Every structure is written in C-alpha cells, then in structure tokens.
C-alpha cells in the first residue's frame, strides 16, 4: 500500500529529475572551477540522454502495470509489484548513452590558445537553467506531498 502510494505518482520521476540536476550542477561547478586550466575541455551531463532514459523507464513502468492489470483482479496489482519495481530499471536496460559528454570537436565554444574552451557565460546560464529545473521538480514534489497529506488528514 505504502510503496504504491508513492511509486504510483510522479514523485519517483521528480526524485530522479532532482538528483540529475544536482549531479549536473556539480559538473557545471567543476567547469567554472577550471576556467583557467590549460587544456581543460567543457564537461556536461547530457540533458537529452537523461530525458530519453526517463521516458524509456516510464514506458517500462506503464507496460509493467498494464501487464499486471490484465487477467488479475485490480486489487492484486500492488501485490504483484515488489517495492521499488516501478522505479527506474537498471541503466543497461535502455540504449547506452554516454553520460559524460566531452565536447571535443565542438566549435560552438571559442577554443583559446591554451586549449581551454570553457565559456563562463555559458556555464553560468546552464547553471541557472539547471537550477530552475531543480526548483520545478521540487515545487511539484512539494505540491504532491501536500495533496497526499490532505488526503491522509482528511482535510483540504
């Protein structure tokens, strides 16, 4: 009952988004720290790769829930799914994505003579966007918890 209470909602998805944005923030902070390191190439976590994996994991969860629902009484669904089964599958289950992108031959950034291609403005902007995504996930999560709390305490 309790696992399905949380895993049936968007909370696990939001949790993944929050942890991804947190990890990406660390990488972006590393880029800014290496602003003057000769030969340093910009690192990033692939936003597209994360979205693709999340989508695949959600599709897998939905199809698992559907398979469990067919031929079984509705009340048994939550018993069929062990706790955590509806969370993201192991990373090997989906198409491999190179999680740590090195933008080696990317001419979008100016390459300086010391081989460094970090652009402070770009990194700061990415950080701000990342922060907004993090805030978005946390705000929605808070709203969901508030809804659950309202249901538990039987008041609006």
């Amino acid at each position, binding site marked *: 009952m309790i696992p399905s209470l949380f895993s049936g909602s968007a909370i696990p998805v939001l949790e993944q988004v929050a942890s991804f944005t947190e990890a990406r923030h660390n990488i972006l902070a590393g880029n800014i720290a290496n602003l003057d390191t000769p030969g340093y190439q910009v690192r990033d976590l692939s936003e597209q790769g994360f979205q693709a994996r999340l989508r695949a994991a959600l599709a897998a969860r939905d199809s698992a829930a559907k398979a469990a629902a067919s031929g079984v009484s509705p009340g048994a669904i939550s018993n069929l799914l062990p706790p955590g089964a509806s969370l993201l599958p192991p990373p090997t289950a989906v198409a491999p994505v190179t999680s740590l992108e090195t933008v080696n031959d990317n001419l979008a950034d100016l390459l300086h003579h010391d081989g460094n291609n970090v*652009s402070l*403005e770009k990194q700061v*902007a990415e950080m701000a966007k990342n922060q*907004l995504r993090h*805030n978005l996930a946390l705000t929605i999560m*808070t709203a969901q918890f508030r809804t659950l709390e309202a249901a538990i305490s039987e008041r609006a």
Partner: protein
Amino acid sequence: MFSAMDISTSAMVAQRTRINVITSNIANISTTRNEAGEAQPYQPKFVVFQTDDSVGQALGAAGVKVTSVETANVEPQWRYEPGHPDAIKEGPRRGYVAYPNIDLTTEFVDALEATRAYEANIGAMEISKDLANQTLRILA
C-alpha cells in the same frame, strides 16, 4: 522555455570577445614590434559578428556568434625618433619609427558600447529567469 537564455548567453560571449579585442588594441598602442620581435607596428584588431540560427531555434529567434577576429591594415603613425632601435635606417623615412595607428576615442567608445550591450543582455537574462520563476509560483 530556455532558448531566450541561450540567445542572451551567445550575445554576452560575443560582447566579451569584443571587449578582449578592444583591450588588446589599447594595450598595444605603443607596440612597435610583432610577436617575433621584428619591427612591425601593431595593427588594430576588430571582431566580426554573425547571426547564429543554431541558438534558440524557437520562432525565428537567433543568437549571435563571433565569425572571426580581423586585423586592420592601416597606415602606421610615423614619429621621428632617430635613436629608437626600430627607426628606419635608410630611405626617405630615415629616423622615423612606425607606431600603431590606434584611435583611443574610437576604442573607448567601442568598449563602452560593448559593456552596455553586455549589461543589456544580463538584464534580458534576468527577465527570462524571472519569467520562469513566476511560472513556478503558479504551483507553489
């Protein structure tokens, strides 16, 4: 949602590159030799901007990128300094030294303009961030 920020970022990178080039021009206002140490006056540099459609594809908006940093080819300023090691040894310009022909007024006005453009883009970015935050406030 975030393409406006990408566009502002591209403009900030471009304007900062422009300021770098301007400071290089001001720093080398008395430079009479090139990188190899030969007598050749510094020639002012300038940046060329180009619209960049790869930034912010949404609704025909375009960013900006630095196409190249070009070197001007202007006549140097000739100053009579016979004792200078880079002075011309023979010919009609004997005793003259070639100094870079950099107009400080132009450079400072350009620097001011680039600074204001940079600030304007920061302002636009702040507005974009504020928009996103206001959207979040609907939920909270």
